[in-house]
């Protein structure tokens, strides 16, 4: 008895000793992959978390152009005072300086608009935090592999599904992916650059086990947790729009999680991206399907394509299987033992 206890305890200790370093090595894999991608993308980053890089670059561009326009104005003034030239040339110079001034003023206006957008973004971040108040599922996106922050490098190595409305060109399709981390379902859509229009996320459909569907919409929220229908989700500004949420389209308007929408270019020459989180506890509440019973989850965005993103579990049915096999094994013992006894008795 003492030996068996000692053997059991030593086996447990050995497994602990072997598994802990293996687990730490295994858990480093995702972090290492993400860190490598982040370091390789430093030169190509167009937007950081607050859009400050874009804002700063716009400001620098506007500053540079202001300097150029100022210089050209001073050059024009000197030309007017020191030399007498043809009126057409002066007019051309003035026209050029006016054009440059107009361009610089337009860039200034854009920069101001971007600032206001980012200011609004900061406000919507606060609103997003307000939305989470009173909701029991706080910090839906912290401490996970995916962060809802408008930076999409964490989606780099997750496989994406091609989505389109029967596009004949395989290079002109949108991309979508789902990732399940515990009870939180993360989603990501990226528009193809060829379409040059804003991605619409006003309606999506989440289907559980191919039977129960839930309508979702990504909208701006009000402080009381309702949808702000006055916000124009069809003309989002350039930059990262935070403070969005995933809502149930039915009644009541359950809030399911955060969302962030990124418009890289006002003319959508670069495809928009959106990432969001959906708390499956809310889905379970709406559909009365326990999370453990959600075998297959399908997300469909009809605004960008007919293809749905599908994520499924691959449970082996362990409990039922173990019971089944134990019963079979024990039954087999009884049967074969009786057979052997009876054959021995027959021989005697």
């Amino acid at each position, binding site marked *: *008895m003492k*030996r*068996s*206890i000692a*053997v*059991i305890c030593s086996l*447990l200790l050995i*497994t*602990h000793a072997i*598994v*802990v370093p*293996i*687990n730490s090595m*295994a*858990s480093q*894999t*995702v972090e290492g*992959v993400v860190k490598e991608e982040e370091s390789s993308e430093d030169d190509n980053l167009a937007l950081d978390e607050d859009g400050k890089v874009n804002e700063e670059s716009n400001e620098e561009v506007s500053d540079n152009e202001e300097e150029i326009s100022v210089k050209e104005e001073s050059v024009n003034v000197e030309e007017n005072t020191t030399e007498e030239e043809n009126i057409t040339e002066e007019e051309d110079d003035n026209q050029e300086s006016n054009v440059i001034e107009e361009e610089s003023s337009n860039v200034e206006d854009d920069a101001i608009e971007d600032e206001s957008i980012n200011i609004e973004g900061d406000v919507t971040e606060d609103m997003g935090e307000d939305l989470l108040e009173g909701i029991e599922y706080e910090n839906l996106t912290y401490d996970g*592999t995916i962060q809802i922050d408008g930076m999409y490098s964490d989606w780099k*190595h*997750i*496989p994406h*599904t*091609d989505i389109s409305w029967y596009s004949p060109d395989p290079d002109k399709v949108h991309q979508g*992916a*789902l*990732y*399940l981390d515990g009870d939180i379902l993360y989603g990501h859509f990226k528009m193809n650059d060829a379409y040059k229009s804003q991605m619409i996320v006003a309606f999506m459909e989440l289907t559980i086990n*191919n039977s129960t569907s839930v309508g979702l919409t990504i909208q701006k929220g009000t402080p009381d947790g309702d949808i702000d229908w006055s916000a124009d989700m069809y003309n989002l500004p350039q930059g990262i729009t935070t403070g969005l949420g995933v809502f149930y389209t039915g009644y009541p308007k359950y809030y399911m999680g955060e969302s962030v929408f990124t418009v890289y270019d006002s003319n959508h020459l670069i495809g928009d991206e959106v990432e969001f989180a959906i708390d499956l506890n809310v889905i379970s509440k709406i559909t009365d399907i326990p999370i453990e019973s959600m*075998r*297959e989850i399908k997300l469909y965005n009809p605004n960008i394509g007919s*293809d*749905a*993103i*599908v*994520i*499924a*579990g*691959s*449970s*082996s*049915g*362990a*409990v039922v*299987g*173990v019971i*089944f*096999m*134990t019963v*079979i*094994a024990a039954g*087999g*013992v009884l049967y*074969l*033992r009786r057979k*052997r*006894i009876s054959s*021995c008795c027959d021989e005697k």
Partner: protein
Amino acid sequence: MNWLTFIALIIWVYILSVLRRGKLEFWHFLIGSAGLFVLFMIFVQPLLTTPLTKAVTMASGSIGKVLHLFEGYPEYALLFIKNKSGAISLIVDYECAGIIEMAAFFSLLVFFPVYLRMEKVIVGIFGGLYLFFANVIRLVVICVIIAIFGNEAYFLAHTILGRIIFYALSMFLYYVVFTKAQIIRQKVGSFRYEDE
């Protein structure tokens, strides 16, 4: 380990000692294997789940890569299958990694009186590897069926065919390890084992 678990462990060990002294072999086997399974799930399963899921994903993904039918992403424990009706991502979590089956097998084996101690260690190692590869075969079969027949075949592939294959392979293991060994090694007459 909290104090409640520690007390339960002490009680379990005491009950086993009582059953051993009372020569109640069946109850000793039953309570011992059940208790060890619970201990395994409490202490060992959280540590083994992540590396096991990654290993299963890596092994399955390697086969899928050779077949050019699906891909494995061990860092995310995902199997990604592209097919005619789109694509599907299969999550390999602790229910899919075979950790529960391995825990049950080891728990039953440790308290199975037929084998000698060293035999238990060797049978346990080979049985664990067998269950690992049986799970890999199950996942590969599921992925191949979905890759060929589309997402609509998911229910048939996963719930029926994959489980039938895994249960059949596991039943064979249980038959060889427990049933056949029991029958071969026991003596008819007064019930005793070969090593007694």
